């Protein structure tokens, strides 16, 4: 038999020649699934035909637990959802309960919350940027990012005693007032932090190999991102100018002057892995701007005065959403007028963003799956809840 390339292609197309597909199980014990995610990859050689994410290895029944807790007791559980952005999780939940109860907050509380939330955003993005670099094979930027994240965790530790799971934002206030010298420390951090971004940019983000590995990979067009209900850097990376802090303002974000960062497509196609990554890198600078402005007008006052003695919201329901580092974090809280919530439903950004995985991974290589997963930036604690 005489085979030419064309005849072989014909054979494959017509089904006379079948090549076996291979199923590769990536995770739950795998260095780059960022936790206990399991990806079932259907492969044709090294080419990915299909990606099926399996989850539930970290399921902790957050929503069912919440029904059996008093309102303040739910807050520590929200910490453990997206454990890299616990402040933002607290924020969304307490905001929902406060809106149900109609609590007005003192200015100082609002400022502290904004500063903490933005510091947490920087810390969370640093992890995302560092681990993404590690997925691509660059180990050193990861440690630079963690070194700077340490500064933020130290500040958090001084204020509320915890480094990762804070239970800091309470309904109507915060657990502790900020420590003495907080303003100076945060200002010093920002001064230290800006050159680091330049350093990581030089070492990683504008590295030729890094761009080769991430540009034009896992392209997520804006309409697909919208139809999958993606949010956060995932959505902005595709060029959609949407940020809840500006478009559905909560707290006092409308008092500050900052820009929403969107993907530019300058390295390849709009919405590729590099764009999503760079949205995070550039967002850190915007967070710095917000923090700087907040520090400049940081008011004095009492942080516990608005904390209610009894937290028993009136009958009703509310959906509150905040801009988590990973996207829209929503809490749907139903109150039946008792001390325990009737229902708490969380809408996690990582969970929703992960659903787009299969769509943007097809036709890529195994190495690209790692890059795409890293650029989606999932936290399994929140996907499984």
């Amino acid at each position, binding site marked *: 038999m005489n085979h030419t390339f064309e005849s072989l292609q014909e054979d494959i197309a017509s089904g006379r020649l079948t090549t076996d597909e*291979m199923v*590769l*199980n990536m995770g739950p014990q*795998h*260095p*780059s699934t960022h936790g206990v995610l399991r990806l079932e990859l259907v492969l044709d050689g*090294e080419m990915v035909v299909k990606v099926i994410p399996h989850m539930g290895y970290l399921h902790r029944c957050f929503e069912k637990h919440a029904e059996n807790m008093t309102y303040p007791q739910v807050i520590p559980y929200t910490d453990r959802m997206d454990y890299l952005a616990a402040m933002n999780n607290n924020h969304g939940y307490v905001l929902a309960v406060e809106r149900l109860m109609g609590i007005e907050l003192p200015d100082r509380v609002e400022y502290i919350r904004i500063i903490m939330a933005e510091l947490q955003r920087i810390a969370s993005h640093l992890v995302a940027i560092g681990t993404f*670099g*590690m*997925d*691509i*094979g*660059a*180990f*050193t930027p990861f*440690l*630079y990012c963690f*070194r700077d994240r340490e500064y933020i965790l130290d500040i958090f530790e001084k204020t509320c005693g915890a480094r990762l799971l804070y239970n800091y934002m309470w309904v109507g206030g915060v657990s502790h007032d900020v420590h003495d010298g907080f303003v100076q420390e945060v200002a010093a951090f920002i001064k230290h932090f800006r050159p680091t971004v330049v350093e990581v940019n030089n*070492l*990683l983000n504008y*590295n030729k*190999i*890094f761009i*080769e*590995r991430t540009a034009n990979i896992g392209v997520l067009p804006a309409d697909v991102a919208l139809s999958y209900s993606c949010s956060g850097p995932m959505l902005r990376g595709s060029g959609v100018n949407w940020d809840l802090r500006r478009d559905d303002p909560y707290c006092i974000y409308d008092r500050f002057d900052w820009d929403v960062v969107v993907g530019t497509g300058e390295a390849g196609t709009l919405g590729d892995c590099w764009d999503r990554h760079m949205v995070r890198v550039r967002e850190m600078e915007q967070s710095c701007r917000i923090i700087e402005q907040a520090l400049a007008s940081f008011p004095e006052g009492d942080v516990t005065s608005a904390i209610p003695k009894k937290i028993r919201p009136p009958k009703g329901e509310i959906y509150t959403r905040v801009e988590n580092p990973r996207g829209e974090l929503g809490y749907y809280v139903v109150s039946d007028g008792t001390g325990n919530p009737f229902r708490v439903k969380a809408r996690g950004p990582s969970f929703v963003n992960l659903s787009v995985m299969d769509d943007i991974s097809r036709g890529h*290589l*195994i*190495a*690209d*799956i*790692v890059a795409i997963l890293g650029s989606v930036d999932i936290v399994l604690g929140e996907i499984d809840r």
Partner: protein
Amino acid sequence: MESLLQSLLGDNYLTLILYCALPLVFLLLYALLAILGEVKISAWMQDRLGPMRTGPWGIIQPIADVFKLLQKEDITPSSADKTLFNLAPFLSFMSAYAAFAVIPFSSLYVGADLNLGLFYLLAIGSLNVAAIMMAGWASHNKYSLFGAMRAVAQIVSYEVPAAMAFVIVVMFVGSLNFQDIVHAQAGPVWNWLVFGGPKNDVVLAGGTVLAGSWANLVFLPLFLATFVIYYISALAETNRTPFDIPEAESELVSGYHTEYSGMKFAMFFMSEYANMFLVSAVTAVLFFGGWHSPFGAYLGDLVGVSWLVPVEQFGWLAFKGLFFVFAMIWLRWTLPRLRVDQLMYMCWKVLIPFSFGIALLVGLLVILLK
């Protein structure tokens, strides 16, 4: 060296074994140093301290690592092909160690002074591919298999530009013998091949005279490019970053040695480090004067202690080799990893055409200048 050992111990098998084991002693000591270097240099680059608890500044950490590996359970997966699985690490180390036979450590010590030294090196180096394939296949693990397939494709591909770099040097020197290549770079630093080769006539081992002149400077850009091509290929052949695709940690867990533990893993580890020094030493021999001192003179000659000269020569080769090992470590902790198709692109569409072009030019120039 051989005659020295023979005069000390007599002409028997013991002498021969001792003679063959000398590089092994060096290799083991070097591996300890290189492991320490890797952890410490990476730590400094990453703003960390690295190991600090085992001994002062953690300097006995590599020895502790060796003891740890010795104590580890030696697991053979139940579904593995046991013969191949157990053989592969030793074959891998064997191929790396066998290649050391032709490395000229000094003017007096070379394990086997083969006339076809470069050819032998290429041939023996390729055995590593078989070992990796055996390991990946026998592990009965999809990740290992992927790692092995990638490694084989990568190493086989990169042997082409590496061999072309050899050809370029051989065309200039006119010999496949490593000692001849080193002799051709006798004298001070500007006689090294990377700087265009000898500027005065040099005598090779067989008595042939290699004509040198300052006109050889035209070779400088060509040999510099050849050096770059060879070093990139060497990185790829030893599976080091940015070409560590076969064991890409973030994708394939550990590639072909995922299933290995204990001393069998250590053998793969050793063969990787041995290969690193091997290609670094070959780089030094081919382009950087081998065991020649960069000053053209030796302290032993100046003070009149003749036995010091070969020791110094060995020191220079070890220094040059370790420098290139350091460069590999440096690159590893700086660069991200390429993707498998980009790696192939780099080899077949960039390095190979360039190496062929340089080979053509060098060939023409050698004919014209003679």
